[in-house]
């Protein structure tokens, strides 16, 4: 079913009363996901945002709780305040990234209440990609530029209307507010089929990467790989699936707050223990960790690769470390015979 952009815009604007709406807007640095009050503020023709939308479920700096000591009593207050949210314009790679984050923040042993409260109270309206950049390589992971995994509703841009696909119950409920839905014409259906069958020209072969990495922990491949990395946090902060964090206490006299902030395994002090020992004090160990985590450990633990091929790390890395080249290198690396 399709809806004209005009009608969609009206439904969108009506949502503003009940939901916080996050959508792609143009800013000094490119595209960013920000709060909007009307469909007219949304950037129509865009590739993707500079930073991933994971911050809406997993903020960069989040107050977990605050506490106050009064005499012998301590009062603890939760700092979690979540509004109903609609995330509009999420690309299939980022939506899939949310699904991967779900595996981390909710599993058999633990559900992260902060992440989950935000997740439950939001609806994701994905928008399929009409344009593919040379740094996009989502097809490597079985993600389609028109993929629906992770979205509640998927829209495909047909020019002056959107093809609307209901993916989840949540999405269906939201779509109930859309008026004047109509059937797609034959041409429009053909366009939808074309978009759905698109693949990214850039693809890495990851079919054997996990099993290859199983045997590569001591490979000399890691020695040369890490040389040019400068150990900043750009790749981790730009990645839709990276999720490492640090928890700290900010205390002043008798009051304090417990805070969670993003952290990155690329930082030299990431694994510094209280004792002073640092198991990953070599950059080589940190790069090995990054690649193994994304393409081996995560696969063993959760059954999926922790990369969605969005290309942000490739574009933003100050020294042009290209994860596609790294994967190719790992695939080709000689195994050291023990």
């Amino acid at each position: 079913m399709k809806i004209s952009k005009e009608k969609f815009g009206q439904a969108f604007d009506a949502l503003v009363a009940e939901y916080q709406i996050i959508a792609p807007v143009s800013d000094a640095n490119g595209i960013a996901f920000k709060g909007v009050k009307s469909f007219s503020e949304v950037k129509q023709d865009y590739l993707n945002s500079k930073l991933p939308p994971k911050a809406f479920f997993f903020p960069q700096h989040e107050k977990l709780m605050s506490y106050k000591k009064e005499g012998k009593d301590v009062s603890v207050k939760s700092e979690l305040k979540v509004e109903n949210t609609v995330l509009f314009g999420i690309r299939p790679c980022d939506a899939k990234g949310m699904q991967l984050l779900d595996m981390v923040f909710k599993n058999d042993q633990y559900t992260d209440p902060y992440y989950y409260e935000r997740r439950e109270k939001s609806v994701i309206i994905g928008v399929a990609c009409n344009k593919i950049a040379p740094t996009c390589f989502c097809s490597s992971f079985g993600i389609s530029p028109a993929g629906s995994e992770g979205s509640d509703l998927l829209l495909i841009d047909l020019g002056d209307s959107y093809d609307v696909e209901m993916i989840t119950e949540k999405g269906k409920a939201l779509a109930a507010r859309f008026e004047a839905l109509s059937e797609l014409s034959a041409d429009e259906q053909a366009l939808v089929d074309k978009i759905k069958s698109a693949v990214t020209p850039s693809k890495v072969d990851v079919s054997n990467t996990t099993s290859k990495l199983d045997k590569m922990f001591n490979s000399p491949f890691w020695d040369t790989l890490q040389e040019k990395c400068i150990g900043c946090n750009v790749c981790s902060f730009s990645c839709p699936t990276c999720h490492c964090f640090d928890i700290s206490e900010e205390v002043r006299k008798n009051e304090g707050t417990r805070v969670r902030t993003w952290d990155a395994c690329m930082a030299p002090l990431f694994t510094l223990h209280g004792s002073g020992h640092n198991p990953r004090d070599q950059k080589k160990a940190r790069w090995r960790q990054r690649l193994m985590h994304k393409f081996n450990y995560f696969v063993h633990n959760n059954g999926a690769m922790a990369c969605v091929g969005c290309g942000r790390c490739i574009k933003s890395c100050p020294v042009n470390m290209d994860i596609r080249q790294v994967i190719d290198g790992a695939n080709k690396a000689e195994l050291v015979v023990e």
Partner: protein
Amino acid sequence: MGEIQVEAENKKYEPKIAAFLCNWCSYAGADLAGVGRVQYPATIRTIRVPCSGRINPLYVLKAMANGADGVLVSGCHPGDCHYISGNYVARRKFALIKSLLNHVGLEEDRISFSWVSAAEGIRFAEVVKGVTERVSALGPNNGIFKVDDGGAADE
């Protein structure tokens, strides 16, 4: 109830000024002012450092970040440093600190540097009076460098 309210309104705004004083000259000068019962506003919170050369620019930033409305840094007169050259090194640093902080929009009068010797008790009081007047006129710190307890990211 009414009395207390009136009192609160009449109370003038008193700035909090972090004062980094070098042990051998400025701190001794402040001490001399105290011993001589020379009056000066109780706005400064003194932090004794061994030498003005010890001042890391982060101290000034952190004092502002923690809510100080102004910062005073005071050392020995050039040529009189107990450690010979500490204040010469500090002199260059202070010039740059003042210049950069002013450049990012911090009001000039919030950060003050002075040379006060151990014998200058009265002068120390005058310096503090002057600094207090200028910082009061600017009003409270508007949070340009605020580092908040668990402060939320702003949009």
